[in-house]
């Protein structure tokens, strides 16, 4: 018992506890230091978040500002009177199938060149893009009356003039542009052809559709292969496999497989699918197989974690009412683990989508001017296309490269959006 | 026996036992002093015994309160439960014993103050040894409770037979005395009641012993031990 607050501390036995003085200077100092540490930590964390957000914003901004130009195109107003050219086609021939062939055979390309010469002088045909006459062709197909009356059609200019018109190009081109601008015949419009056409040697005519379709086909093969195999492997390893040395080895191998550099998978694909199995080169099926090899361990690991996260009590509950192990897995464990598995799958797929190296190894770097229509058709994929374009000398490809990157990023964002949607859709709380 | 994990439980049980033994001590004193008051005779001492009985009643209420609290707060089980229940019942029995002592004390003025007062009734001299025997049984029963000793409890029950025999002989002596000294009938009748009270105290000590036996062993005492009490109650009914 204390006699009062003022008892002497000298005679106090050592075991007796002195009440802590929470107002003492040392304690206060410690408190202040603690608060300072808290504040410091918050600031550092915040700075890290802002830094990464800043880098992301910088990346997006630079891609957008550069890439947006890839979707724009300078056009020149071309007065053309096809009636004067006496093209040997009838209005009926330009309707329906065979119109392209009929118009090409009738010398429409020459007619366009004539029109350009007539309008802007002898050099003018060189200013037009190689694809200019195709624009005229499509216009004729839309409106066959153009065959009989004069009209003015906006046609794309060459890459050099395009660059000169929108930024700064070679001096000669700049001069042409200045002249044309003085006449007020240049205009800038959206280049929707970029999304619908395939690779080309002319930057004004290139499109991303071939690579996009190649990517879609490749991803389809990868998903169809890697998802079921990965999920079943994960389910078996988590739910059925006995815990012993062999499963340990398998687990370690899978973890290592997920860390193997992707180029190794490319070499593997080259050796197995092309050289041994003699599958077609550059085909989405081979690309898909190779990327599936790479994606599967990621799905297995994500799947195992998701399955592990399903509370054991749910398994017990199902077993206790007499569910067989398969019923436990498919009625309870899999539905509960699915959001996690899907998230892991999408992450793996996103990685596969952005992969270049292994696809280069299996020959998906060829110049492919037509979009693939079957899995065995030669194709390329978005990142490879970007890689190829970034290598081109023609300055017109610079913008196209950035535009392709935008397409790739949009594709990735769409996949991630799908992942978030699926997760929310299937997520069950317990 | 090992201590409870919850130390306060042991403290509660200890307090309960303390109260019971305190009560037992008071009851023994009351018997002894009542008999002393009778023997001397000493009406002042008799009144004091009468007044002191309130203390025993107070402890009984205290035991009851504590027992209820232990049951509510500690949820005693098995031996603890039996002990708490036994303590509660023992307290009320000891309170009855105190009442008998008080009853004896209250008869002192009637025996002393009646006609022919001062005249010694000889048989009064054997009552103290009967009282000593009865209070000895009470003490032994309570000691058995303190020691959780069922064997000691059995011995208490067995000694009740001797007390009953004692009572029988006093009964005969007093009846003979009444026949021989008709003038003292009212005093001797009171003495008869005193003897009967002492005999009842022995019966109650036996009840306590049976409770102690149950508390300590968990089973009821076998009938053959209680032979004495049974024959006694048969005689009572006669």
């Amino acid at each position, binding site marked *: 018992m204390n006699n009062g607050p003022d008892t002497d501390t000298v005679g106090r036995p050592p075991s007796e506890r002195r009440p802590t003085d929470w107002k003492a200077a040392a304690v206060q100092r410690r408190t202040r230091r603690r608060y300072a540490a808290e504040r410091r930590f918050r600031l550092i964390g915040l700075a890290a978040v802002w830094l990464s957000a800043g880098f992301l914003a910088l990346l997006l901004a630079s891609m957008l500002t550069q890439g947006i130009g890839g979707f724009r195109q300078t056009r020149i107003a071309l007065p053309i009177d096809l009636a004067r050219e006496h093209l040997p086609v009838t209005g009926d021939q330009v309707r329906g199938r065979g119109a392209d062939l009929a118009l090409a055979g009738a010398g429409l390309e020459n007619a366009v060149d004539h029109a350009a010469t007539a309008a802007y002088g002898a050099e003018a045909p060189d200013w037009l893009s190689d694809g200019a006459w195709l624009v005229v062709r499509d216009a004729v197909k839309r409106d066959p009356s153009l065959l009989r009356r004069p009209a003015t059609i906006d046609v794309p200019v060459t890459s050099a003039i395009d660059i000169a018109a929108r930024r700064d190009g070679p001096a000669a081109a700049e001069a042409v542009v200045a002249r044309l601008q003085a006449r007020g015949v240049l205009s800038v419009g959206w280049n929707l052809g970029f999304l619908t056409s395939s690779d080309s040697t002319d930057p004004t005519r290139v499109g991303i559709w071939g690579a996009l379709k190649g990517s879609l086909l490749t991803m389809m093969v990868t998903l169809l292969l890697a998802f079921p195999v990965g999920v079943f492997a994960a389910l078996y390893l988590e739910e059925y496999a006995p815990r012993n040395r062999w499963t340990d080895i398998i687990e370690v191998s899978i973890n290592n497989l997920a860390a193997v550099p992707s180029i190794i998978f490319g070499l593997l694909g080259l050796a197995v699918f092309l050289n041994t199995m003699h599958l077609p080169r550059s085909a989405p099926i081979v690309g898909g197989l190779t990327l599936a090899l790479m994606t599967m361990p990621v799905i297995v690991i994500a799947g195992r974690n998701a399955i592990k996260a399903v509370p054991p009590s749910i398994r017990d509950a199902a077993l206790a009412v*007499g*569910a067989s192990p398969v019923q436990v897995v498919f009625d309870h464990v899999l539905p509960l683990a699915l959001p996690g598995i899907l998230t892991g799958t999408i992450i793996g797929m996103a990685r596969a989508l952005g992969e270049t190296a292994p696809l280069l190894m299996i020959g998906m770097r060829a110049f492919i001017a037509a979009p693939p229509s079957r899995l065995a058709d030669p194709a390329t994929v978005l990142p490879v296309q970007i890689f190829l374009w970034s290598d081109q000398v023609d300055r017109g490809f610079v913008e196209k490269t950035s535009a392709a990157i935008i397409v790739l990023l949009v594709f990735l964002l769409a996949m991630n959006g799908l992942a978030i949607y699926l997760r929310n859709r299937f997520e069950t709380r317990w | 026996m090992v201590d409870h*994990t919850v130390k306060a439980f042991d403290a509660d049980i200890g307090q309960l036992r303390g109260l019971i033994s305190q009560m037992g001590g008071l009851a023994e004193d009351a018997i002894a002093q009542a008999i002393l008051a009778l023997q001397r005779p000493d009406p002042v001492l008799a009144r004091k015994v009468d007044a002191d009985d309130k203390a025993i009643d107070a402890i009984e209420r205290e035991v009851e309160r504590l027992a209820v609290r232990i049951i509510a707060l500690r949820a005693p*089980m098995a031996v603890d439960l039996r002990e708490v229940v036994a303590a509660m019942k023992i307290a009320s029995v000891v309170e009855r014993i105190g009442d008998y002592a008080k009853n004896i004390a209250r008869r002192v003025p009637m025996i002393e103050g009646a006609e022919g007062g001062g005249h010694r009734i000889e048989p009064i001299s054997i009552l103290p040894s009967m009282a000593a025997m009865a209070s000895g049984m009470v003490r032994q029963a309570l000691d058995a409770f303190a020691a959780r000793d069922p064997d000691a409890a059995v011995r208490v029950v067995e000694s009740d037979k001797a007390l009953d025999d004692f009572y029988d002989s006093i009964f005969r002596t007093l009846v003979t005395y009444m026949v021989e000294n008709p003038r003292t009938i009212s005093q001797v009748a009171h003495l008869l009641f005193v003897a009967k009270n002492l005999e009842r105290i022995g019966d109650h000590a036996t009840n306590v012993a049976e409770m102690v036996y149950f508390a300590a062993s968990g089973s009821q005492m076998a009938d053959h031990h209680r032979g004495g009490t049974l024959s006694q109650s048969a005689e009572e009914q006669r």
Partner: protein
Amino acid sequence: MTFPPKIQARDVSVFYGDTRAIDHVSIDVAQDNVVAFIGPSGCGKSTFLRTLNRMNDTVASARVDGQILLDGEDIYAPDMDVVQLRARVGMVFQKPNPFPKSIYENVAYGPRIHGLAAARADLDEMVERSLRRAGLWDEVKDRLDDSGTALSGGQQQRLCIARAIAVDPEVILMDEPCSALDPIATAKIEELIHELKGRYAIVIVTHNMQQAARVSQQTAFFHLGQLVEFAPTSDIFTNPREERTRDYITGRYG
């Protein structure tokens, strides 16, 4: 006892690897009784409970010696179908574990996987009957499509009991069913156990001795994997024969 016991355990030992968790336990569970298993943590009472419907099979290293007979049939015989056994011997767990599905689906799951209901109407009736028996019907009849996990803890546990009795088991094992519940919910479960008694043989593991005293007719005290004492509940709690039992139930367990 006129009928042979529902469950007869004979000389049962359970090993986890080399560790003996249950040491030669023999016990009979009567058809119309509630039997409580009590004992300190790690005494093996839950392990023993889980051997009664072979839930220990999920633990790879577990091994069971001895015999456990359900209606005279050895449940560890090679030809015993575990799935059917667990339908006959239902189980309720410590933590309420309803499936993250609707209340209706929770109860209907068992009958559905065992093909007990021929038509939707049968299933509806089974669900209602089970929920009524579990004393939950009036509380949930208007929201059978709500998630089972949205119920309160006590309701969840009664839902789990309804789920267990939906497959019409013969025995219900309960592993500390009230340890996660408040006293009112606990009382409701205890009342429910009282009502289920007679229809099912019930074995309940509990840490709460008062609960064992309240709900059971017979109590088994386990200590260090051994069955120390198995006796009528009133005897165990007023006059245990074994010193270890006495020390445990009076709170002297060291």
